């Protein structure tokens, strides 16, 4: 029972027990005091009634009548007995016959209040005349009240001459009432109090338990199971963080932490994979390049020596060309491991497409895949790394053929020339604060592109804004929530403000921030979250740019919707053991290196379209 909920309930229970206990104690005490007072008053009244009821008979010394009255009175159920004692302590009248004539000791407990100080007191308050006692330890309680009978003229003037004028008190009337009824009521209210206390404790504890369960136990359990999930390696586990209290905050920061952790792990994993890929590439390069040297030297040697035989020349040229391509592939394997720059030359995209198609021709015809080409003959030559681009097309064609499967289908390859606005096409690759600190964060990527990292302050909270580097795209991320509030943005390194004091957003009039793009002017942005105003004047001035668009469309099985956002991630593969998961990420890298873009549309069962756009002029 070490649960936090149990401890909270225990604490609440103890508090309730103490407070209700104290309350009940005083409540019962006050009730019993009230009831006893009531009985006391009643007894006093009764004794006064008896006193005045018997007055006349006393005066006329009608003893039988007094006896009768006392007996009748005492017959009432709550009255225990009624006695009249004379001043010497002898019981003169009593509701019980056996008492009559007995002497009562003045030192007895009932008489003590008056006779304690030797000389009898003559007037006493009602409290002092009352006594509560038990006959023996187990008996019910009794309340006795002594009512002194004072001397008055009619007494000493009476014909019997029993009393003389000098006396003050002639005797006492002692009425004893049973407290059984009262005691029973007190007991009953004690029981009621006890029941109330128990019910209150149970109900309170239950209510507290319910809320503790909802507010503490569930979120804590979620956190606990999430921690266990994460510990067992499932870093994609997130806690549903819909609450706004501290535990909700904790859940959110936990999610943030696991996201960071998984990013870091992916990076570590990737760099580890890259390192082993690098070693593998080096080994492969060395091992393959030696036999390739044999092939290349002999084939080029033959090509040189058979210039008079054109029928062999064609075939030899294919061998030499493809061996040279293998050489480039091996080299790019090394380069890939070392991330080097592409070797760009002016090339005809259609020629590259032809070569790529020729390489996979066999596989395509085996799978009964028909390639439909809709090529735009007016396409200009563009500056690309032909080998890398060929690798891209081969990869896309092989993927398309794999998606089509064994039953045959169509791949449509389309090319066209487009004129596009830089908005939505161009992305920020370099960004600087006024003090020339680099703002590009290669660690944090949005849609695969390194984001622009800015320090933000909103409502005295500090954090970072990761700006989507694609001009016109707004998948920004921020580490501190600041909804609708304008942000104060500055350089993460030198904290120099990036806010433009002289400018307001033309859309929503919020303050504008800006940073330098080396060689390409300034990038301006509205600082209010949700406002999408951006301006990159230098790029806008250049106007629309020509792009070559290449679409590869297949009639295959399509890509599941949930996989679409991830297909360009490294090591994401839908082919199971067949693929390395590097294909599309390498393609993405190549296209990005060419300042182009690649997008994918897919519908389950209907096929997939990859669209590549490459700038005609960089």
């Amino acid at each position, binding site marked *: 029972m070490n649960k936090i909920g149990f401890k909270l309930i225990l604490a609440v229970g103890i508090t309730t027990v103490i407070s209700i206990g104290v309350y009940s104690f005083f409540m019962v005490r006050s009730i019993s005091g009230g009831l006893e007072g009531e009985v006391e008053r009643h007894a006093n009244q009764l004794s006064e009634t008896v006193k005045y009821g018997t007055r006349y008979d006393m005066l006329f010394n009608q003893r039988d009548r007094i006896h009768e009255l006392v007996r009748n009175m005492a017959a009432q159920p709550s009255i225990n007995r009624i006695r009249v004692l004379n001043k010497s302590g002898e019981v003169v009248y009593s509701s019980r016959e056996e008492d009559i004539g007995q002497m009562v000791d003045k030192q007895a407990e009932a008489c003590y209040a008056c006779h304690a100080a030797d000389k009898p007191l003559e007037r006493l308050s009602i409290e002092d005349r009352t006594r509560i006692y038990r006959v023996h330890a187990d008996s019910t309680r009794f309340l006795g009240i002594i009512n002194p009978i004072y001397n008055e003229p009619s007494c000493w003037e009476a014909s019997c001459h029993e009393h003389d004028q000098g006396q003050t008190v002639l005797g006492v009337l002692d009425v004893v009432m049973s407290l059984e009824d009262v005691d029973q009521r007190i007991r009953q209210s004690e029981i009621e109090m006890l029941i109330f206390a128990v019910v209150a404790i149970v109900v309170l504890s239950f209510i507290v338990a319910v809320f503790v369960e909802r507010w503490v136990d569930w979120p804590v359990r979620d956190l606990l199971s999430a921690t266990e999930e994460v510990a067992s390696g499932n870093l994609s586990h997130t806690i549903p963080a819909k609450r706004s209290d501290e535990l909700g905050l904790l859940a959110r920061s936990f999610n943030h932490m696991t996201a960071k952790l998984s990013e870091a792990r992916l990076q570590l994993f990737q760099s580890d994979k890259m390192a082993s890929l690098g070693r593998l590439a*080096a080994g492969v390069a060395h091992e393959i390049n*030696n036999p*390739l*040297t*044999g092939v*290349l*030297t002999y084939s080029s040697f033959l090509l*040189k020596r058979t210039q008079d035989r054109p029928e062999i020349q064609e075939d030899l040229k294919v061998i030499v060309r493809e061996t040279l391509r293998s050489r480039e592939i091996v080299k790019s394997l090394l380069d890939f491991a070392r991330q080097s720059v592409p070797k*760009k030359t002016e090339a005809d995209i259609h020629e590259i497409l032809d070569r790529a198609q020729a390489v996979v021709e066999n596989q395509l015809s085996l799978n009964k895949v028909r390639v439909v080409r809709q090529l735009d003959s007016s396409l200009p030559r563009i500056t690309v790394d032909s080998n890398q681009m060929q690798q891209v097309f081969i990869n896309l064609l092989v993927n398309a053929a794999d998606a089509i499967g064994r039953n045959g289908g169509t791949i449509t390859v389309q090319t066209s020339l487009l004129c596009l606005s830089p908005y939505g096409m161009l992305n920020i690759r370099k960004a600087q604060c006024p003090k020339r600190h680099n703002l590009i964060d290669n660690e944090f990527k949005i849609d695969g592109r390194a984001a622009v990292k800015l320090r933000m302050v909103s409502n005295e909270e500090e954090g970072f804004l990761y700006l989507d580097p694609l001009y016109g795209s707004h998948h920004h991320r921020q580490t501190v929530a600041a909804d609708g509030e304008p942000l104060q943005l500055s350089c993460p390194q030198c904290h120099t403000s990036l806010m433009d004091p002289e400018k307001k957003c033309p859309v929503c009039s919020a303050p504008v921030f800006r940073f330098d793009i080396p060689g390409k002017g300034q990038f301006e942005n509205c600082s209010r979250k949700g406002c999408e105003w951006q301006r990159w004047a230098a790029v806008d001035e250049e106007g629309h740019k020509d792009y070559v668009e290449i679409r590869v469309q297949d009639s295959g099985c399509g890509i599941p919707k949930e996989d679409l956002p991830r297909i360009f991630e490294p090591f994401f593969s839908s082919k199971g053991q067949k693929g390395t998961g590097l294909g599309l990420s390498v393609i993405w890298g190549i296209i990005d290196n060419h300042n182009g873009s690649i997008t994918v549309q897919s519908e389950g069962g209907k096929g997939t379209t990859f669209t590549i756009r490459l700038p005609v002029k960089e």
Partner: protein
Amino acid sequence: MSKIVDLLAVDDEPVVLEAVERTCTTEGYSVETAADASAALDKLHNRRYRLILCDIMMPALDGFQFLAEMDRRKIKTPVIMTTGYSTLENAVRSLYDGAIDFIPKPFTVDELLASVSRAMKYIEIQAALRQARSTDSIVYVPCPTRYLRLGYGSWLSLENDGSVRTGVTDLYLRTLDAIRELKLRHGNDELVQGSSCASLVSKDGLEHQVLSPVSGRVIEVNPDLADDPMLLQKDPFFRSWFYRLIPSDLEYEMKHLIPCSSDRI
């Protein structure tokens, strides 16, 4: 002493040795082969060779150790390095360690022959230089003292504004036959140290690569040279520069360049 052999090929791959032997013999060179570096050193002990073609990645002694051993034994035979692990670091290091050229594997016949023919010419020039010392005639124009060079092929000069100028040395040009064509890269291209930055087609149809002495982005291609490639042979060190570049990692890369001032000693 028997006749001098033109080429000693050193490689642990028999197919490469065979290919080199076959192609070079057809071109009229005499060729011998060695399966590893120590066999090659034995052969060098017994015989004279004009040129050595040596692989870098070999069991026991590798290509760099072979170069060092030759230096220790004071064998002056020029070496062309080759390797299947054709990283640019290897190329640059070979050239710094005294190799006269570097051919990445796999190579075509033309690439091999271009390099060998340049090397043969280089050997002739070195011999002529020894003779000319006594007569004080000029065999080739040496590289200006404040320049740096990669091997003997390309030069680098630091400009005051932080950019660098690159070009090809007179010695390299003299190892070629008459130049028929010069192929230069374009502005904004990224060059990498040790990779080809330009190529010269000689009259015999062979294409000769000029390796870039530095990595960086081309900001200017010499407009005079584009107009008139023949300018190259007239003034290779000043008017006939190739590119102006913004170097990307000059400080590190300069460690692998040879200061031309050391040539005068």
